[in-house]
């Protein structure tokens, strides 16, 4: 019988030897939205040994335009994305061991899991989780591949511990309040393109062909026809708190985590970012109005409805999410609308 991987084995940088390595690898995908769906399907079709996929959300109708693993049935049943993903992935390739986790991937979870994996694929929608992934990657020596997209724009970078700069070197501060897929929209080709960059790099890492890694921060805009690939090696910082000589992994510490609290008897969750922020409420109002939302704003706070929830954003960065007592549901809404 001709192997189902014959075409991949014919590709000489992989070959039969590379396929063996792929089939004995264990990859963690964090997030099962658009990027996570695409990456999971590609890796499962490529025949990795084991896949762990984690997501805290459930399937909604607005996901179906781009999240390739899900069907109308999943949206009707409000199935958790991790479970719906596992079902579909198992139907695609039953020889891959798939572990689905309906969970909020935060510090405790990631620290407990990290050392098991050969590679972590970022398919999250927020920088808070990415900074945790970054510190975990450095602490346990596991490479990770950043990918993100909004509108027709996408970006990706491959982080190899002890070799490349880390995310903290590149960012210096954690971005707050950027555009998100739920505020600025997203087209599916931007997703596929980022997935293609991430999975090409993933395959190189899994077969051990590190010399072929891109080594550059890549970004593109498919609508404006722009492309850029920049060598960011010079941004690696000797004194970086996440990857430098005297590192402290700041994003694994309690002080740097976003705090949540369920407000008793109010069906409300409060989310408080680690540092006091100065949110630009006026800019946020403009974006939300463009989406056709009804927004109320005064100098201290802004309030808007995302049925059946109401979100109240304070100038100091705190957010109240009314209409839920579920912390991970609240965090999901927070990252979807506020970046």
């Amino acid at each position, binding site marked *: 019988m001709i192997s189902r991987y014959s075409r991949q084995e014919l590709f000489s940088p992989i070959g039969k030897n590379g396929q063996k390595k792929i089939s004995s690898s264990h990859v963690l995908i964090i*997030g099962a*939205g*658009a*990027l*996570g769906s695409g990456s999971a399907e590609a890796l499962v079709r490529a025949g990795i040994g084991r896949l762990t996929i984690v997501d805290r959300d459930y399937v909604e109708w607005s996901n179906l335009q781009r999240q390739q693993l899900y069907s109308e049935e999943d949206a009707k049943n409000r199935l958790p994305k991790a479970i719906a993903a596992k079902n579909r992935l198992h139907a695609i390739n039953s020889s891959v061991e798939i572990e689905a986790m309906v969970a909020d991937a935060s510090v405790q979870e990631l620290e407990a899991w990290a050392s098991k994996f050969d590679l972590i694929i*970022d*398919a*999250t*929608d*927020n*920088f808070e989780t*990415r900074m945790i992934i970054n510190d975990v990657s450095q602490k346990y020596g596991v490479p990770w591949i950043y*990918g*993100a*997209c*909004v509108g027709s*724009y*996408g*970006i990706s970078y491959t982080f190899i511990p002890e070799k490349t700069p880390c995310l903290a070197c*590149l*960012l*210096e*501060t954690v*971005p707050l309040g*950027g*555009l*998100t*897929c739920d505020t*600025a929209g*997203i087209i599916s080709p931007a997703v596929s393109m*980022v997935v293609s960059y991430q999975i090409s790099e993933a395959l190189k890492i899994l077969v051990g062909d590190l010399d072929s890694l891109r080594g550059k*921060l890549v*970004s593109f805009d498919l609508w404006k*026809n*722009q*492309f*850029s690939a*920049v*060598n*960011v090696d*010079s*941004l690696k910082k000797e004194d970086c708190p996440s990857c430098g000589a005297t590192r402290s992994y700041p994003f694994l510490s309690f002080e740097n985590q976003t705090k949540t609290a369920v407000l008793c008897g109010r069906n409300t969750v409060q989310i408080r970012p680690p540092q006091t922020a100065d949110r*630009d409420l006026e800019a946020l109002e403009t974006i939300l109005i463009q989406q056709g939302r009804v927004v109320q704003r005064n100098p201290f706070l802004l309030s808007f409805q995302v049925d059946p929830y109401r979100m109240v954003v304070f100038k100091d960065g705190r957010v109240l999410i009314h209409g839920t007592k579920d912390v991970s549901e609240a965090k999901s809404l927070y*990252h979807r609308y506020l*970046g």
Partner: protein
Amino acid sequence: MKVTLNGESVQLPEHITFVSDVLKHYNIHEKIVVVEVNGKILSRLEHENTRLADNDRIEIVHFVGGG
């Protein structure tokens, strides 16, 4: 001035002198960006005092979070 921005030839308006002016012009000055001019990556402080000239090759990458 005429520069190459992310691979495309672009005519920048008269008032633009520094890299930070370009970021403001494209309304990305409040985003986290990596800027490369003629093959050299600039630190964030250098955005304010790096003068641009005709035919400069500029690459601007901004970080986004969606996925």
